């Protein structure tokens, strides 16, 4: 198919450029050996079809775009766990609320950046009250915490944030606070439980086609690289919006 040839040629050209730029030729050759079975143009076409479907029936919320991978030659009971997080190049959840549990430095930074925050004193005031801590956990999607403060969290809050799956991510004084918050917003989880299908959020319908394509390509290549037989473990790939019908990609 002409579209596959073009993308292979482009990939070869990019590899050649990287080698000329000083990158290791062996690394580049290895990149080509796990040749993607899905071309950029095929992804782009599927994203377009997805968008058409979503526009036909607009919803009153921003639909998530999900990548669904059907596996084959894989035994969820016996094979190693398939679980983790991916950092996507384009933020899939820009509306994710992040609260900073900060020392004086980070509280000032958060204030200046218009971010919500809680100081050590604020957390002490919760008095380890389980109901209040649960309320705090529910109020935000994720937490950042100053390195010094994160060590006090077990003492200040007990396991209150753990159960909600919202234990904070550490930040140092050298980190840029809004960049770190955006990093959190770029991370998506994936986990294969007892079935042969894995769903992974990779964006939302308000992103541009190029942004979606970028996220999808990265997610596919990363997830496939973790499978022991790479593409031989992939039976199908679908893209789906929250309320839409699945569009087959592979």
């Amino acid at each position, binding site marked *: 198919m002409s579209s596959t040839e073009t993308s292979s040629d482009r990939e070869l050209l990019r590899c050649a450029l990287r080698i000329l730029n000083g990158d290791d030729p062996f690394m580049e050759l290895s990149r080509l050996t796990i040749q993607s079975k899905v071309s950029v143009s095929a992804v782009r076409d599927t994203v377009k079809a997805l968008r058409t479907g979503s526009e036909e029936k607009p919803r009153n919320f921003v639909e998530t775009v999900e990548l669904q991978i059907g596996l084959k030659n894989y035994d969820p009971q016996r094979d*190693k*766990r*398939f679980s983790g997080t991916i950092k996507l190049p384009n933020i899939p959840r820009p509306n994710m609320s992040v609260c900073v549990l900060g020392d004086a430095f980070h509280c000032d930074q958060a204030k200046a950046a218009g971010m919500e925050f809680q100081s050590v004193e604020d957390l002490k005031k919760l008095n380890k009250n389980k109901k209040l801590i649960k309320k705090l956990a529910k109020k935000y999607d994720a937490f950042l915490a100053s390195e010094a403060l994160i060590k006090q969290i077990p003492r200040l809050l007990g396991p209150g944030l753990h159960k909600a799956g919202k234990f904070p991510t550490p930040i140092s004084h050298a980190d840029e606070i809004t960049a770190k918050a955006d990093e959190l917003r770029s991370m998506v989880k994936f986990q294969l439980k007892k079935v042969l299908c894995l769903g992974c959020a990779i964006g939302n319908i308000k992103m541009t086609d190029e942004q979606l394509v970028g996220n999808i390509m990265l997610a596919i290549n990363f997830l496939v690289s973790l499978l022991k037989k790479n593409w031989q473990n992939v039976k199908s790939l679908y893209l789906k919006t929250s309320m839409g019908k699945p569009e087959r990609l592979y």
Partner: protein
Amino acid sequence: MAQFQLSQANDLLVPMHLYKSTHFALDNSYIYDVTANSSHVIVSASNNQIKLYNPETLSIANTLVYHNEKITKIKPVGEHELFSASLDGQIARWDLRTNNVVQQFKAAPSSVSAFDINCNGTVIAAGSELEAHDAKLMFLDTRTSQMLASFDESHSDDITEINYHPTIPHQLISASTDGLICQFDTSTYDEEENIIAVINSGSSVNKAGYFGPSAEYIYCLTHIETLSLHNLEGDVVSNFGDIRQATQPGQLQVDYAVDCRYEPVAQRLYMLTGSNSGDINVMHVNIGQLQLCQSLKGGHTEVIRSIHWNPQDNVMFSGGEDAKLCTWSNAPPPADATGNGVVRGLPSRMQTKRHSPY
């Protein structure tokens, strides 16, 4: 760009090669766990059996059958005991002199996805998978089988690893697919008060353990094949990122990490990695550095699931998804397939007792 430097260090280990191999079963079983005591190599597999092997000949000394569901961990204690845990919610205590289950610990209806026994043998800590919104960390009295406590707030997803501190009987770490490694002090059981420190890996933790001359560090291996080292306060001492970046196509294939092992005499941390085609790559871990010590090839053909290795002994046992159990050693391989060659190579405490003629 890799977050570490890769180099070679051929002189850190005495070179090992394939000494012996055998098949656990001929039914396409995966070997899950390989461990050993002073007299046997002990192996669990996906057909829910545990086998005891003669470490020199790899002949089967005994087969233990008990669990109905996946065996998640086996751990030998002392010369004669073995503990095995399963998703069926049971932990069995075996007497290896009679090959009988002498005690049962019931975690059911919770499954047991991980467990460990403290250094004085008084408490078993068992972790479960996420079931009905709870991932439980349970503490069981080894003498009475009674449940001493059950923590259900500390993890929000499957518990994958539990390790007690090597010398402090009430300190332990638990790791989970929720990305957290929790450190507990259970002098008294109170979940609100017992958490000392938490490491957030940001991903899903596969293996975690203490290492260091006084167990003052923790290593963390995730399911996305990253390695990080931490102190007990939770600070990152070294973050290696994706260890698959050590791959040098055509020369070194690193597809996953099997586990880490600490060698206390030379005070070195090693990471055992593997390739999808069955290579074992032994790496020495230093701050920001990975040193390839040796690649062990020709033993396995599929993913390696477990390695038992005492670096001081120069003997390694490995098991994988090819159902093979392999012995690696610096001793010359036995003269013939039945292992009738002179028992020269393996350290004497690994050999079975021989009748003294005098």
